[in-house]
């Protein structure tokens, strides 16, 4: 979704990329094709979390921790799904100021069957606001869940529950507002973030990094081998993520329009390119292309194209896919050992840096610009501002949350014994597999 201008209020650019106007006059007509596509896209984005991400991450941990990972995803769907209706939507998309929304739409007050949101078709058309709310809900659900990859196999479940609740309110909602609401300052600056490079991937990825550092490494990290317990689960997850990502990116056009089609095409193209590029790099560097590499590459390609998918050409998508391979491969292969942090499932290398690259590349390869921007150089500068802000804001606030949580919970980690025995049993009283 979205960058820049509110078409019906400002002017209508050739490719309209405005924030949705929420008209409440009750007489606005909705477009059924647009509505059909955004309904579908919303379902696809839920599938990305449940079961997509749950599997992608769940397959990568040891079998004694897989249920814990799955539950972290389910609870994100539970807590954030509920909070979104109660207060999150209002904080993110309520009018408010340039930093955060307000409480005007708490518990969806004022939203009725007649409320509509304007979309990014040219000229803009309407979809029911309820659809927009749910499409956005699915974004809100997946974002905190992405963080778990960095803290897997060691965080207390109670801490997780508290953490995502607070993080959602004080990190996600403000960033979503700043970037996607017409009042948000990043939005107003003309930054491009079509489907959430800043809002989703950088915000979660940089927060994940600081959380991983704060928590410390898994017991035995570096000494024992901790291979994925089921790569097939991981690859199923990657496949479902890929499928669902079409809803994520093309759905962000909020319309069944040529813009959605372009976003769709760029999404697939960047992912395909990254898979090929990553396999080539691994083959060259390690002698063999790995399956985990294939899955990681697909996801990295999808992350990087996310902010850019509505504003670049198919060739741009190819460059972005190649670029993210370089960035993320380097990060997980060289940067991680060099910095010696334990980001269990590489959220930083893939989402934080992949998202940052995508946000930058949105400027470099843009063929349509944000509102008030005239050219790639200017767009790149604006993008950098958004990237920098997110890369500082998200981890700093996350750090504050973690400090508070440590005051409340004592240790944020399970005991050593529980960690050895596995979080499935210690946190949930269950085992994943039996005969």
């Amino acid at each position, binding site marked *: 979704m979205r960058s820049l201008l509110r078409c019906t209020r400002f002017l209508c650019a050739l490719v309209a990329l405005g924030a949705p106007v929420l008209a409440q006059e009750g007489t606005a007509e909705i477009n059924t094709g647009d509505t059909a596509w955004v309904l579908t896209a919303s379902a696809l984005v839920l599938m990305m979390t449940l079961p997509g991400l749950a599997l992608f991450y769940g397959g990568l941990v040891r079998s004694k921790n897989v249920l814990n990972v799955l539950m972290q995803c389910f609870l994100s769907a539970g807590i954030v799904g509920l909070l979104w209706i109660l207060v999150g939507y209002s904080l993110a998309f309520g009018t408010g100021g340039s930093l955060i929304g307000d409480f005007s739409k708490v518990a969806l007050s004022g939203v009725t069957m007649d409320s509509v949101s304007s979309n990014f078709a040219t000229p803009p058309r309407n979809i029911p606001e309820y659809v927009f709310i749910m499409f956005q809900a699915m974004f809100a659900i997946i974002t905190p869940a992405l963080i778990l990859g960095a803290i897997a196999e060691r965080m207390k479940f109670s801490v997780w529950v508290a953490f995502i609740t607070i993080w959602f309110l004080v990190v996600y909602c403000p960033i979503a507002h700043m970037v996607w609401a017409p009042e948000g300052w990043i939005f107003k600056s003309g930054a491009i973030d079509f489907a959430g490079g800043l809002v989703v991937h950088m915000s979660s990825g940089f927060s994940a990094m600081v959380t991983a550092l704060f928590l410390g490494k898994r017991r035995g990290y570096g000494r024992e*081998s*901790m*291979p*994925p317990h089921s790569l097939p689960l991981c690859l199923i997850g990657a496949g479902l993520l890929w499928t669902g990502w079409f809803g994520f990116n093309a759905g962000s056009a909020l319309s069944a329009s040529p813009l959605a089609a372009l976003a769709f095409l760029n999404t697939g193209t960047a992912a395909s390119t990254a898979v090929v590029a990553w396999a080539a790099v691994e083959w060259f560097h*390690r002698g*063999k292309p*790995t399956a*985990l*590499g294939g899955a*990681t590459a697909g996801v990295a390609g999808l992350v990087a194209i996310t902010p850019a998918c509505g504003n670049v050409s198919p060739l741009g998508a190819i460059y972005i896919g190649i670029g993210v391979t370089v960035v993320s*491969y380097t990060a*997980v*292969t*060289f940067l*991680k*050992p060099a910095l010696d942090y334990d980001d269990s499932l*590489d959220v930083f290398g893939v989402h934080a840096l992949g998202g940052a690259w995508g946000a930058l590349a949105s400027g470099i390869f843009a063929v349509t610009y944000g509102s008030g921007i005239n050219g790639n150089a200017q767009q790149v500068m604006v993008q950098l501002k958004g990237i920098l802000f997110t890369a500082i804001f998200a981890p700093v606030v996350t750090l504050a949350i973690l400090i508070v949580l440590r005051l409340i919970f004592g240790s944020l980690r399970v005991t050593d014994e529980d960690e050895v025995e596995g979080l499935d049993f210690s946190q949930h009283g269950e085992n994943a597999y039996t005969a």
Partner: protein
Amino acid sequence: MKKVEAVIKPFKLDEVKESLSSIGVQGITVSEVKGFGRQKGHTELYRGAEYVVDFLPKVKLEIIVKDDIVQKVVDAILKAAKTGRIGDGKIFVLPIDDVLRIRTGERGGDAI
């Protein structure tokens, strides 16, 4: 009576079983084990990280036999399980005090 235990490479199981069958062995108990030995483990790659896998998959056979055919059994295994490459495995012979067949309660040689 003796218990012959053999740790072999998994893909040799079928050959060894057939070879034992052909010399009249009527019962074998098999388990999946992991072996650590002179054969060095391999290295697996996971997202750039390398894991050295020390333990290699092996199969363990346990066969109870009368004393007089111990040598025949050992020879059969030696022949069928051998590839000549490191990691082919070991055969151990252990003493046994008694054997019983649960179904019939038979004891000793008859129970094998």
